[in-house]
């Protein structure tokens, strides 16, 4: 089942690559730089909404006594890890794209700033998860930290939106429009396929990361270092 998912993901990613690099036309204004869109938007979607959404939901389910299972905690951790990787990718790709179209690597736009703060918030969350502790303690602590980080995101977003728009308006808003060009035809299709491909990639990674977490958990219980190493090797298949 997971293998099928992996194969479909790989195929869709290949289709995305072909569509993005060959089929879709260069943008009238940005030229070939627009092709970064097909990576940038899907990674942002996976990181911000999917991963951190799943992390928050799983944390809330763990905290709710009736649905408390150790799996929720592991799922939250696995999802946050993938989210951090993807959000770092989003920032990196966005930065390259910004250099190509705006001429700067970084601008203190609301969206960029919120994303950067989000990355640091969840890095902190992962650091907290790595602190050795009894599983229940760690789960409670990280679930609460995850929810705290999650409620902070809208506040950060709101504050940087105001921060930007109360005084300085011109440059950033124009640049922002560049980020959201009206798109047509093959560009739209490429983007949609890219979104699907990256969403599937997320689930594929999540299944593997979650399994790995479960195995780690069991191994911790049994203190079988050998078994741990073996399963890790088994789960660490490099995505195609």
């Amino acid at each position, binding site marked *: 089942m997971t293998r099928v998912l992996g194969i479909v993901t790989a195929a869709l990613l290949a289709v995305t690559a072909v569509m993005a690099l060959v089929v879709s036309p260069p943008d009238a204004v940005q030229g070939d730089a627009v092709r970064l869109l097909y990576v940038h938007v899907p990674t942002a979607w996976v990181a911000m909404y999917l991963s951190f959404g799943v992390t928050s939901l799983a944390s809330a389910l763990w905290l709710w006594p009736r649905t408390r299972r150790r799996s929720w905690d592991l799922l939250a951790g696995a999802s946050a890890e993938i989210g951090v990787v993807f959000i770092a990718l989003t920032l990196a790709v966005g930065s390259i794209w910004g250099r190509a179209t705006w001429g700067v690597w970084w601008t203190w736009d609301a969206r960029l700033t919120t994303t950067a703060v989000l990355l640091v918030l969840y890095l902190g969350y992962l650091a*907290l998860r790595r602190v050795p502790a009894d599983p229940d303690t760690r789960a409670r602590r990280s679930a*609460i930290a995850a929810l*705290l980080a999650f409620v902070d995101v809208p506040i950060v977003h709101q504050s940087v939106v105001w921060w930007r728009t109360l005084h300085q308006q011109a440059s950033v808003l124009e640049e922002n429009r560049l980020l959201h060009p009206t798109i047509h035809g093959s560009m739209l299709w490429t983007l949609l396929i890219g979104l699907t491909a990256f969403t599937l990639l997320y689930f594929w990674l999540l299944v593997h990361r979650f399994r790995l977490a479960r195995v780690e958990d069991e191994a911790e219980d049994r203190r079988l270092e050998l078994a741990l190493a073996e399963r890790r090797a088994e789960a660490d298949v490099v995505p195609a």
Partner: protein
Amino acid sequence: MWRDALLVAAKDLRVEARSRVATNQVAPFAALVLVLFAFALDPDRGVLGRAAAGLFWLAVLFSALLAVQRSFALEAHDDARDGLRLSGLDPAGIFLGKAGAVAAQLAVLELLLTGGIAVLYGSDLRGAVILAVTAVAATVGLAAAGTVYGVIAAGLRVRETLLPLLILPVVAPVLLAATKAWDAGLSGASGEGWPWVRLLAVFATVYVGFGVLAFGALLEET
């Protein structure tokens, strides 16, 4: 709950009154930060004056980290944490008390720092009303968020290094909003600052509420 909060806050402040850690270490540290900012930015009154609000709140943020760490270092020895847990006090009260003590110390510190920026950076303290209201809202928010993360990090061996990583991004909106509100107040355009005070109030409410609800669960863990 409120009686418990007062008890805990009074205890923390009494410890401070006798040990003088905040007075003898945190306050000089904050003043030092102000002086170091002047070194970094070249002692040019123009730049320092324009950046005064941001530098002030950055100094408060750093001091808040120390205050939170101190607040939980108090409970680290002689099983004081277990004592607190077994005392039968309402966890929400303990949270409010600890946050209240941190907020009280920060408030005193902010008064000193305000004098600091007036003297060192040449800021005009116009718009005293908005400066004071902003300071109150921001201090409550900082103390509440700091106390929640403080108790999360308290039992850990890596707390000194982990706590800043956890707290600083979370209180980023406080820095943004308080800086803007103070900018408005210091430049005499108080009207522009009030939306920021609202944001600070929202932040403070969210974290005080969260702390009241979650502190019991966080304190229970070993």
